[in-house]
């Protein structure tokens, strides 16, 4: 018999590895065999974590069906068990795993949908902040040249080469297993929780570059220049108004 740490390590290893034998010193009733009993723990660990992922990525699960999703999630769980008792943080690597999971290749946009769902989850639990009222926009215009905007802590961007927001909306609405003709081209999503509801919006061309630049601390003219360089059709006034209207701006700085 090893140290307590060794014994615990053996127990933990046998939980995560379905092929492993019951650890030494573990017994059933009256010293009897414990295969079936130990399997209850093994099953709990996997099933509970798969349930966490299924609850966190419901649209992804709809797109591929429950059985496929659970089988895929189970592999992720075995490869990447949680590193914190705060399970709210679990699943951050799931989208990347999906992107590299060959059986999911027939649904090429699945990883982006998972990214969008992770962003949704992050926005749901993010810090709270009061959006600036829309009227404040007019007051900002005269000093727009020098202005940087503080964006809402829940704000997340998900950029995609697929019509991501359309896919997400349809799946959330209809169940997602209907073959649908998708619009051509990519869509960028803005995920935001100005109050209690998480909102997902389709961004106009250049919008994601603009918001990303603002998030990185750029002042308005620089952010607008980056967006125009990325997309000729970028419309600063419309993008700024859209941001304000959605409740994405919580403060300003650099007005001096």
């Amino acid at each position: 018999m090893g140290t307590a740490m060794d014994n615990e390590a053996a127990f933990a290893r046998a939980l995560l590895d379905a092929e492993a034998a019951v650890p030494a010193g573990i017994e059933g009733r009256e010293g009897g065999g414990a295969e079936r009993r130990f399997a209850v723990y093994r099953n709990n660990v996997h099933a509970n974590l798969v349930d966490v992922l299924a609850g966190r990525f419901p649209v992804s699960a709809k797109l591929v069906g429950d059985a496929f999703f659970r089988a895929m999630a189970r592999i992720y769980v075995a490869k990447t068990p949680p590193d914190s008792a705060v399970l709210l943080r679990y699943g951050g690597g799931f989208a990347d795993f999906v992107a590299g999971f060959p059986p999911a290749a027939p649904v090429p946009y699945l990883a982006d949908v998972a990214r969008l769902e992770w962003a949704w989850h992050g926005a749901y639990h993010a810090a709270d902040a009061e959006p600036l009222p829309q009227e404040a926009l007019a007051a900002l215009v005269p000093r727009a040249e020098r202005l940087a905007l503080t964006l809402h802590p829940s704000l997340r961007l998900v950029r995609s080469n697929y019509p991501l927001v359309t896919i997400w909306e349809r799946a959330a609405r209809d169940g997602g297993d209907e073959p649908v003709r998708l619009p051509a081209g990519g869509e960028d999503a803005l995920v935001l929780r100005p109050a209690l509801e998480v909102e997902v919006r389709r961004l106009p061309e250049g919008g994601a570059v603009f918001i990303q630049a603002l998030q990185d601390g750029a002042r308005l003219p620089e952010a607008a220049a980056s967006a125009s360089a990325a997309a000729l059709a970028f419309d600063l006034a419309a993008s700024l108004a859209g941001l304000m209207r959605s409740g994405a701006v919580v403060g300003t700085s650099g007005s001096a």
Partner: protein
Amino acid sequence: MAASVSFGTNPVPPRGGAGLKPEHYRTILDSAPDVGWFEVHAENYMGEGGPPHAYLTAIRERYPVSLHGVGLSIGGAGPLDKAHLSRLRVLADRYEPGLFSEHLAWSSHDSVYLNDLLPLPYTDATLSRVCDHIDEVHDAMARPMLLENPSTYVAYAETTMSEIEFLRAVVRRTGCGLLLDVNNVFVQAINHGFDPFDYLDAFPAEHVREIHLGGHAEDEDAGGAPLLIDDHGREVAGPVWTLYAEALKKTGPVPTLIEWDNDVPAWEGLFAEAKRADAAIAACRTSQPGPAGASPRP
């Protein structure tokens, strides 16, 4: 939403309470049910903001709340996670729960969180470790904790003392209180082949500050012996209610939580179970005049 509010002291009363589920937030606020209190799993409120905190704040303004940790791994071989302890302290300071509890179990090894309440052997060495961990929790939390008796599916060959002996020693050495999970007693008794009433008789009832009731599923082990799974996925079983009435005779009226964490029913289903606990507590008061039954414990 982010403003900090002081809730003041608001002890958890000796009544039926319900595990707080996000599915029920709205119904609870809209219908203001006459339920004694709510219990939350601490880890579900370790996000920064959003609906969980907004709703818990609103519910805490209306009801007493108990904080129940599921991830501290008090029975673990390694040291406690200090960052997790301080997250618990922040939550306790924010919501001022009337009770705080954790499990006699481990759930993390070497920074991997296994998300289940796993069993430990009962030996002198594990006893010292659990006591050290509880001392550390008491220091970090600046409030007493209640330790919950586990439900388990396997036993350890190296175990040298009974669960009751172990729990008694922990209480004596650390001064912690106990959370008596009556469903866990029943599950343990069936799974390991002892009489649950004997276990209750030996349980240090004078240290019980809270009771848990929950549902279990029925299975069998490889030898065909019944194996109960503590899944919190249904109503409390009949024999567990019987055992609960017996437990109340020993503990007197104590706050009693209905745990229903999987296949969560509509609020009415959970509320009905809490009312059933209320009725059992009322029956225990009338059948037991005298110090134990007359007034709630401090």
